[in-house]
C-alpha cells in the first residue's frame, strides 16, 4: 500500500498545476452542489416547518366590525374540515408606510400584543429591553428586506393622520408577516393598542377569523365557501374591504421569488457538477496517456497492473476527497449569504446550519464518480504490455484523414495549422463544446433574469403584477364622483386613465376567483391573453389558462360565475396569464360584470403618466385637488420598486457570481486542456520551433484552434438559452398561473455574451499557451 501512495504522490508532484486546477474545479463543484442540495433538501420544507411550529392559520378573513357578525365565527367554527378557529379583535384599515426607500400602501392589521394566540403564534426575534411609549413590533421582513433597525422611527399614514412609532422588536408570523400580499400585520403593546382603539372610535375596529383545517390542500375551497357566505348579503363596495387568504396562496406569494432564486442555484450547481464530471474524466484519461512511458517502465521493473491502477485511484480520489471536503466547508461560509437573501425575500428566517446529509451526499457523489471514472480510464493498463507502453503503446491519435491539406487549402499557414489542430482533437473538442454550451446556457439564464428583473422589468412585472399603471386611486364610496376619471384624464401629465377593478366572485358555485373588470380591455397595457382574446361583449370572459386547464375548459366553452345570489354564464374567449391572482383569475368587461352585479360602479382608477412625470408630485397634486373623492392613493412605481428591490439585489449578485464562475470554469478548463496539449504535443511544438515557427505563431495557432470550439459551444448554449429559457421558466411558474413566459431575450445580449466567451477563451488560451515560450526548440525535441 505504501508503494501505491508513493506512486500517487509522485504523480501529483509531477503535475502540480494540473492537480491544482483539477482541485479548484472540484472545490467549485462541491461548493455549489452542497449549496444546491442544502437548498433543495431543506429550504422548500422551511415554510411548512415554520407553519407547523407557529400553528399558523390555513385560512383567515379580516373585516371591519361594520360588516362583521358573530354568526360568521360560528359558521366557520362548524364548517366541515375546519379543525380550529380563533376570533381576534384587531384594528384594521388601509394605510401606507415606508419599506426600504419606497412608500407602500396596504391593508394593515394592528394586533394587541397581549393576545394569547393559539393559532398563528408569533415568534419574537429581536426586542428592546425597555419598551418606549410608542413601541411597535414589526414582522421580520421589515428588518430583512426593509432594513429597519431597533429604536428607529416607523410611521404609518392613515389618510391624513400620521402614527409615529419606535421599532421595539421584530417577529416572525406566517399569515400577515409579509409585504407580498394585500395584508400586513403589526403588533402594538396592549396599552398603545387600547389607546389607538379609543382615539379612533369604532372606525378601525375589526375582526380577524383564523382557522386551521384538516387538509390544507382544501384550504382554498373552504376559504371560498366562507367568503361566499360572508358576502352573500353585502354590496360590492363592502365586499372589497374584506381581506381573505389561504395557505396555498400565501405560500406562493411568500416563496415565489426565493424559489426562483433556489431554482437558479440548483440548476447552476447541477450544470457545474456535470462540467466537473467531464473534466474529471478528461483529466484522468490524459494523465494516464501522458504517463504511458512511466507506466511501461514501472511494469518492466515489476509493478503489477493492480498496483498501478490503485495508484491512479488513490491519486484522483484522494484529490477529489480533499477538494470536495474543502468545497463543502466553503459552502458553510457561503450559506449565510444565501440564507440572508432568502430571508429578505420571504420574511421567514431560514435557520440552516451544517447539513450532514447534503455534505455527505455531495462529497460521496463526487468521490464515487471520480473513483468510477478513474477505474474506467485506468483499467486499460491491465492490457498494456511493458514494451508497448515504453514505445508509447497507447496511440492517443490515429490520424486517418489529412484535414485541410496545406497545398490545396486557402488561408495563411497559421490559420490552417490551427484549424488542423482543432480538427485532430475531436474528443477534446466535444468536451469543450459541451462545457461551454452548458455554462453559456447558465450565463444566458442569469443574464435574462437579470435583464428582465433589473434593467427592464416590464415582462416580469407584467406576469407578476397583472395590469400595471404608474398610480392607482381608490374612490371614496361615501363621496363618489363618477366624473373623476374624465377630470383626471384632462391633466396634462396624464397619458391615459382607465377604470380597473379587481373583485372576487365564484365559479362552479363554490370556488373563489378574481375578476379584473374594466370597460375596454383593448386599452389596457398588459396583454394578459396568450391564447384567444380579451372579452369584448357582456357575455364573454377570459380565464386564466392554468385554471381553465384544471377545469378542463377551453376557448369556446362556457363557465358560470356567481356573485351573491346572481349568476350568469359566460363564453370563454381567451386564456390569460398572471401571477397576480395565483392562477385563479379572469377578465370581464364592466358590462359583463353588471350581469352579476347590477349595482357595480368602478372603484379603482389606473393612471398612466407621461414619460418624465414625477409620480410622487403628481399624486400630491391629485390629493390636494380631488382628495375628497379619493379613499386611498397608491404610487405603483414605488410599490413595484420596493417589492422588487430585495430581489434585484439577489438577482444582481447571483448574475455576477454566475458570470464569475463561468469565467473561472472556462479558464480552468482551458488551463487543463492546453497544459495537457502542450505536454502531449511537446515534440510537435519542438519540431515547429526548429523549422522556424516563432513562439508567437505557435501561441496564435493553439489559441485560434479553440476559437471555433468556443464559438460553437457558446452559440449552442446561446440558442438553447434563447429558445429554452421562456419554456423552462413557464414550467417553473405554471402553478402560479404563468402559462407562457415572455421574458425579453435580446439577441444582441446573446451575441455579446457569445463574443465575450470567445474573446475570453482566446485570451485565456493565449496566456496559458505562453508556456511554450519557456522551452527551447532543442529541449522540446530531445524530450
Amino acid at each position, binding site marked *: 500500500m505504501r508503494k501505491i501512495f508513493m506512486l500517487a504522490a509522485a504523480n501529483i508532484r509531477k503535475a502540480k498545476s494540473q492537480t491544482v486546477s483539477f482541485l479548484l474545479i472540484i472545490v467549485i463543484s462541491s461548493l455549489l452542489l452542497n449549496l444546491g442540495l442544502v437548498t433543495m433538501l431543506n429550504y422548500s420544507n422551511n415554510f411548512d416547518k415554520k407553519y407547523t411550529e407557529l400553528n399558523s392559520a390555513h385560512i383567515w378573513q379580516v373585516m371591519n366590525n361594520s360588516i362583521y357578525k358573530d354568526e360568521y365565527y360560528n359558521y366557520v367554527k362548524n364548517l366541515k374540515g375546519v379543525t380550529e378557529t380563533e376570533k381576534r379583535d384587531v384594528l384594521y384599515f388601509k394605510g401606507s408606510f415606508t419599506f426600504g426607500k419606497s412608500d407602500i400602501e396596504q391593508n394593515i392589521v394592528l394586533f394587541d400584543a397581549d393576545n394569547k394566540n393559539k393559532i398563528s403564534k408569533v415568534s419574537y426575534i429581536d426586542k428592546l429591553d425597555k419598551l418606549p411609549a410608542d413601541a411597535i413590533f414589526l414582522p421580520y421582513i421589515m428588518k430583512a428586506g426593509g432594513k429597519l433597525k431597533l429604536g428607529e422611527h416607523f410611521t404609518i399614514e392613515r389618510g391624513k393622520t400620521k402614527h409615529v412609532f419606535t421599532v421595539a422588536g421584530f417577529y416572525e408570523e406566517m399569515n400577515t408577516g409579509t409585504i407580498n400580499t394585500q395584508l400586513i400585520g403589526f403588533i402594538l403593546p396592549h396599552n398603545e393598542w387600547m389607546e389607538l382603539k379609543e382615539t379612533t372610535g369604532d372606525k378601525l375596529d375589526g375582526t380577524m377569523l383564523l382557522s386551521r383545517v384538516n387538509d390544507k390542500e382544501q384550504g382554498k375551497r373552504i376559504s371560498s365557501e366562507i367568503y361566499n357566505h360572508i358576502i352573500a348579503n353585502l354590496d360590492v363596495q363592502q365586499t372589497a374591504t374584506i381581506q381573505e387568504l389561504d395557505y396555498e396562496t400565501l405560500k406562493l406569494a411568500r416563496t415565489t421569488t426565493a424559489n426562483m432564486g433556489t431554482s437558479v442555484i440548483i440548476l447552476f450547481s447541477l450544470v457545474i457538477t456535470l462540467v466537473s464530471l467531464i473534466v474529471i474524466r478528461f483529466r484522468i484519461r490524459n494523465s494516464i496517456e501522458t504517463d504511458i512511458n512511466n507506466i511501461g517502465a514501472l511494469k518492466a521493473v515489476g509493478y503489477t497492473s493492480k498496483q498501478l491502477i490503485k495508484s491512479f485511484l488513490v491519486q484522483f480520489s484522494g484529490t477529489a476527497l480533499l477538494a470536495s471536503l474543502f468545497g463543502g466547508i466553503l459552502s458553510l461560509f457561503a450559506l449565510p449569504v444565501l440564507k440572508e437573501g432568502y430571508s429578505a425575500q420571504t420574511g421567514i428566517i431560514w435557520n440552516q446550519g451544517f447539513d450532514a446529509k447534503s455534505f455527505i451526499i455531495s462529497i460521496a457523489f463526487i468521490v464515487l464518480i471520480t473513483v468510477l471514472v478513474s477505474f474506467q480510464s485506468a483499467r486499460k493498463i491491465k492490457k498494456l504490455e511493458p514494451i508497448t507502453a515504453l514505445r508509447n503503446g497507447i496511440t492517443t491519435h490515429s490520424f486517418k484523414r489529412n484535414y485541410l491539406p496545406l497545398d490545396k487549402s486557402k488561408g495563411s499557414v497559421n490559420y490552417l495549422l490551427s484549424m488542423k489542430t482543432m480538427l485532430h482533437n475531436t474528443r477534446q473538442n466535444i468536451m469543450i463544446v459541451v462545457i461551454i454550451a452548458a455554462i453559456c446556457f447558465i450565463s444566458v439564464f442569469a443574464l435574462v433574469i437579470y435583464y428582465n428583473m433589473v434593467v427592464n422589468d416590464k415582462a416580469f412585472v407584467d406576469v407578476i403584477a397583472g395590469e400595471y399603471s404608474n398610480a392607482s386611486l381608490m374612490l371614496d364610496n361615501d363621496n363618489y364622483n363618477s366624473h373623476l376619471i374624465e377630470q383626471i384624464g384632462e391633466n396634462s401629465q396624464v397619458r391615459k386613465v382607465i377604470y380597473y377593478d379587481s373583485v372576487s366572485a365564484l365559479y362552479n358555485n363554490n370556488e373563489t376567483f378574481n375578476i379584473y373588470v374594466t370597460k375596454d380591455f383593448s386599452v389596457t397595457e398588459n396583454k394578459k391573453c396568450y391564447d384567444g382574446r380579451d372579452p369584448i361583449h357582456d357575455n364573454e370572459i377570459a380565464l386564466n389558462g392554468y385554471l381553465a386547464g384544471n377545469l378542463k375548459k377551453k376557448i369556446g366553452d362556457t363557465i358560470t360565475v356567481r356573485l351573491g345570489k346572481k349568476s350568469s354564464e359566460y363564453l370563454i374567449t381567451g386564456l390569460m396569464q398572471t401571477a397576480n391572482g395565483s392562477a385563479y383569475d379572469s377578465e370581464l368587461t364592466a358590462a359583463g360584470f353588471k350581469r352579476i352585479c347590477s349595482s357595480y360602479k368602478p372603484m379603482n382608477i389606473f393612471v398612466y403618466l407621461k414619460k418624465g412625470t414625477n409620480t410622487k408630485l403628481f399624486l400630491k397634486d391629485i390629493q390636494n385637488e380631488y382628495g375628497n373623492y379619493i379613499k386611498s392613493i397608491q404610487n405603483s412605481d414605488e410599490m413595484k420598486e420596493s417589492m422588487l428591490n430585495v430581489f434585484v439585489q439577489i438577482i444582481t449578485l447571483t448574475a455576477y457570481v454566475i458570470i464569475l464562475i463561468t469565467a473561472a470554469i472556462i479558464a480552468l478548463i482551458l488551463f487543463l486542456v492546453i497544459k495537457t496539449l502542450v505536454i502531449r504535443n511537446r515534440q510537435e511544438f519542438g519540431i515547429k520551433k526548429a523549422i522556424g515557427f516563432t513562439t508567437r505563431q505557435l501561441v496564435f495557432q493553439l489559441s485560434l484552434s479553440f476559437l471555433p470550439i468556443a464559438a460553437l459551444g457558446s452559440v449552442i448554449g446561446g440558442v438553447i438559452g434563447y429558445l429554452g429559457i421562456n419554456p423552462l421558466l413557464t414550467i417553473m411558474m405554471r402553478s402560479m398561473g404563468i402559462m407562457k413566459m415572455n421574458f425579453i431575450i435580446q439577441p444582441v445580449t446573446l451575441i455579446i455574451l457569445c463574443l465575450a466567451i470567445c474573446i475570453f477563451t482566446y485570451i485565456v488560451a493565449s496566456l496559458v499557451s505562453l508556456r511554450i515560450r519557456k522551452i527551447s526548440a*532543442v529541449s522540446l525535441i530531445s524530450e
Partner: protein
Amino acid sequence: MLMSNVILSTTKLCKTFSNGGTQQHVLKNLDLEIFDGDFTVIMGSSGAGKSTLLYALSGMDKPTLGKINFAGQEISGMSNDKLAVLRRKNCGFVFQQVYLLDSMSVMDNVVAAGLLSNKNKKQIVQSAEKLFSMVELKRNDWVKFPSQLSGGEAQRAGIVRALINNPKIVFADEPTGALNSMYGKAVLDVLTNVNMNGQSIVMVTHDLNSARRGNRIIYLKDGVICGECKLGKYVSGDRDRHEKLRTFLAEMGW
C-alpha cells in the same frame, strides 16, 4: 582545397548543463569556423558534445557563454523568436528520428515549412515536387502520414522539408543513424547532391561511411576540438581520401 567565406563561427563557445546541482560542461571555450559551401562533419565519441554543438550552431539552443556569428550576424544573444526567423530563412534540419509532424501528410510537412518564408503557395508546391523527385519519393507517398512511410522514405521526406526554403546551411544530426545501409546510402547521396549544388552542410555522425561524404572533419572530445581533417570534395570510390580519413580518426582514438 576549398577556400570559401565563413558562414558560421563560434568564439569561446561554452555550454553547461545543470543536473540536480551538478554542473556538466559539455562545450568548453570552443572556437570554430564553418565555411560556405562546405560539407562539415562533426565526429566524436558519445557524450563529446557533437549534438550540443550542432544545436548551438543552428540557434536551436543558446550557449552558456561565448559568441556565435551567423553570416555576419551575432546570434547568441538573440531572442527565441528572432532565432526562429533566422532558422526558417537560413537553416534546414535533418534529424536522426526525422521528426516529421505526425498529424500532417508528408506534403503538408514540407509546405508548412515552406510557407514560413514564402507566401507563394504555388511556388512552394512546385519546389516541393521537384525536391520529392530529387529524393525519389513517389507521388503517392506525398499524401501519406509519416507513420505510413518506411524509415528511409521518412528521412528523405525530412530532407525535402529541410531544403524547401533553399537554406544556406543544412544541419544534419545522425541522419542515417536509424536507417539500414541501403536507405542510409540514399540519404547520404541526397545530402551530397545538395552540397554539390552549393549549399553548406554540417552533419553530426558516428558512421564512417557518412563521414566520408564531408570535405572537412572536425573531431570533438570532451567538449573541445581535438583535431580537424580536410579531405577534398567527395568522389565516390576515392580510396586515398578514405584512407586519409581512417588515419585521422585512428589518430583521434576513434
